[in-house]
């Protein structure tokens, strides 16, 4: 059993015991099983897939770090949304907001942040549409 924890600055998003975790590392996807060697990695944007028995939980993350030890996977992420909690309208609105912001004059670091928000909302929309 692996203990999976996902925490964002606005609170804890996920805490469950799972059988296997797939992480979107910046260097590519990685599957984590119990008794994995200790690992610390940065995370890009994508889905974390947590397998519990036959069911799967998918959590969308954008940007973060993960620490893997033999019995635990701890993830801190800037954005994270549980897939079942994705609201397409909200995501669509966030996308529009981010796109509007990009039209404005922004400093480079602000642009990077808005880009991250945009990626996160686009991913949300993509996942929601794929499910249909």
């Amino acid at each position: 059993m692996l203990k999976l924890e996902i925490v964002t600055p606005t609170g804890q998003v996920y805490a469950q015991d799972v059988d296997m975790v797939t992480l979107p590392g910046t260097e590519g996807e990685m599957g984590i099983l119990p008794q994995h060697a200790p690992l610390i990695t940065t995370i890009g944007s994508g889905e974390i897939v947590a397998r519990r028995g036959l069911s799967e939980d998918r959590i969308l993350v954008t940007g973060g770090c993960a620490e893997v030890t033999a019995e635990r996977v701890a993830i801190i992420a800037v954005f994270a949304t549980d897939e079942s909690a994705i609201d397409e309208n909200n995501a669509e609105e966030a996308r529009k907001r981010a796109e509007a912001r990009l039209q404005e004059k922004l400093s480079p670091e602000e642009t990077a942040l808005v880009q991250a928000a945009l990626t996160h909302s686009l991913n949300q929309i993509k996942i929601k549409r794929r499910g249909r």
Partner: protein
Amino acid sequence: MASTRDIRRRIKSVKGTAQITKAMQMVASSKMRKAQQAAINGRPFAALSREITVHAAADATDFSHPLLEEREVRKRALIVVSTDKGLCGALNSNLLREAVKYDTAHTRFIAVGKKAAQFLARTRRDLAAEFTYRDTPTFSECQAIANCAKEMFVSGEVDQVDVLYTRFINTLSQRPDIHTVLPLGDPADKVAEHAKAHPEAAPARDYIFEPSVGGVLEQLLTYELSFQVAQLLFEAKASEHSARMVAMKNATENAQQLIKALTLEYNKVRQASITKELLEIATAQMALG
């Protein structure tokens, strides 16, 4: 002497003011709770981020990073966290009084909030950047501020970054306070501190770092910095709203006192005019009879 109509009009207008200040007081108190809640919500993230940083730093012993480098302080940056709006008592003037104490020649200022920006521009300080933040600051806003500070620090433009903000002591008192965010300090100290606090949890050894030790720690330290900024902003917001709450409460009380005084005045004038009229009627009757 003012006529009854004038007094009535004034009572009405003061009542309107009292209603507005009362409403602002309620809004401020709910916003204060929100800011406090946001600060509390961030704690698990801070704890976990620190834990991972400590584990990583404990493993990578021969590690140095520009963000940790302590240099002799020749020039410093000061991030001044003020409010956007007034009507919050002496909060901003207390804060800006501290800002004035910094030597202008060796300090660059970063303004957060409109009041600080206006003040620094008016007093012709070296204003490097200007940020705004919302009632409940988001992590992205804090990242933008942190990135700006980080760039100035890493490029060697400044040797230390301080944040001047209003510390939340309790609902009734807030005090300007200074917190140094950069350099972040030696991770070895933190490792020792953490080991003392959690003696049972010896960190695993020989971590694999992906993509590299430097890359991972860079990101972790950036989070740490952004998070410190975020916590300070939350605290400044909570202070702002509690100061506003108290200021508005006083304003409402003053207005109510004024209404009382005006009502008394009104009744006096009204009675005086009734007495006068009675007197006139009596005199007229006496003259006739």
